[in-house]
């Protein structure tokens, strides 16, 4: 009985991890890991998407992001200053040689403006990252629950953390 439960947990964990891994996309020396987004309310105009760029090679620059899910796609950065959350457009993002850049809540993010359809939990949609040297890299973002703040497989209760 115990081993059965154990096996089940393992399989469930595997089922959770495999799609996340499958979503990783490698092009040359760049790997885009865990592209994700969160579900939107019916009628909501915007969505946000996140991922991490891991660069095993020379410096590159992310020029823009394209997606058929929204009429307009921008790169923004959020930061908090004196208790105020601020947002600014970002025209390009440098990816350092042998370095990484993370798009994440309260930081760099992809702004999907005027969504073609609502983002539903469990769904996927394509994002194309256009790099100066590597060219276009297409990934599939996984849509997570409404208020999620961490990538797939991230701690679900992260919302509940203490400072």
């Amino acid at each position, binding site marked *: 009985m115990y081993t059965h439960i154990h096996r089940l947990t393992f399989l469930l964990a595997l089922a959770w991890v495999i799609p996340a891994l499958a979503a990783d996309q490698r092009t040359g020396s760049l790997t885009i890991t865990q592209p994700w987004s969160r579900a939107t309310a019916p009628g909501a105009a915007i969505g*946000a998407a996140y991922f991490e760029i891991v660069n095993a090679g020379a410096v590159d620059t992310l020029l823009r992001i394209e997606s058929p899910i929204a009429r307009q796609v921008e790169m923004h950065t959020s930061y908090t200053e004196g208790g105020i959350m601020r947002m600014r457009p970002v025209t390009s993002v440098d990816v350092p040689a042998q370095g990484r850049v993370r798009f994440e809540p309260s930081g760099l993010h992809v702004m999907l403006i005027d969504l073609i359809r609502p983002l539903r939990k469990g769904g996927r949609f394509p994002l194309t990252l256009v790099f100066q040297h590597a060219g276009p890299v297409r990934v599939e973002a996984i849509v997570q629950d409404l208020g999620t*703040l961490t990538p797939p497989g991230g701690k679900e209760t992260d919302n509940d953390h203490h400072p």
Partner: protein
Amino acid sequence: MTTTHRRQHPKASLLALGAAGLVAGALIALFWPRPSEFRLTVLPPGPVSPDFRLVDFDGQPRSLADYRGQVVVIFFGYTRCPDACPAALFKLAQVMKRLGPASAQVRVLLITLDPERDTPQLLKSYVTAFDPRFVGLSGTTAQIDQAAASFYVAHFKAPTSNDYYAIDHSTATYVIDAQGQRRLIGAMNTSIDDFAHDLKLLAGRMKQGASS
């Protein structure tokens, strides 16, 4: 001559030191912050009472006084907010679940800082997606400015491209007690547990007040 002076001097300064110590002790005893029973930051009543004259997503005019008798939780945001607003509302939805029956005495309100783009229908589908009991309020730009000012909420339009703007805004969550007094302030990293603990405390106190 100088030696006597020296002998009296230490005595006098000792006495002064003792007196100063006593005064300091009394002052510390008076002003030492007593451990708060609340986990969120306790707000002293400000010179401006929190209030608003807005319209809910069903077209009903609403002021803070309409919610007297309930613990009111207010977040200022907008539906085009990328992560701070959905994170805050998602957390408050979980707090409501955690509260169980006590949630009947708690009202969660989202006041939009983007009345131009947040139509009543959009506001309704947005806030009720988090919890069907949540209410969204809007109004004219002047009404929104007045509401935000009474909570000391800062907000600015921040254009990101020719045809799009974000809204920079305070991300605090405000808790108003059943008497309409500003009581607590939560932050983006305040936990579900801490919110539930404090709201339960305020809701419980309200019950006692009603029975006595």
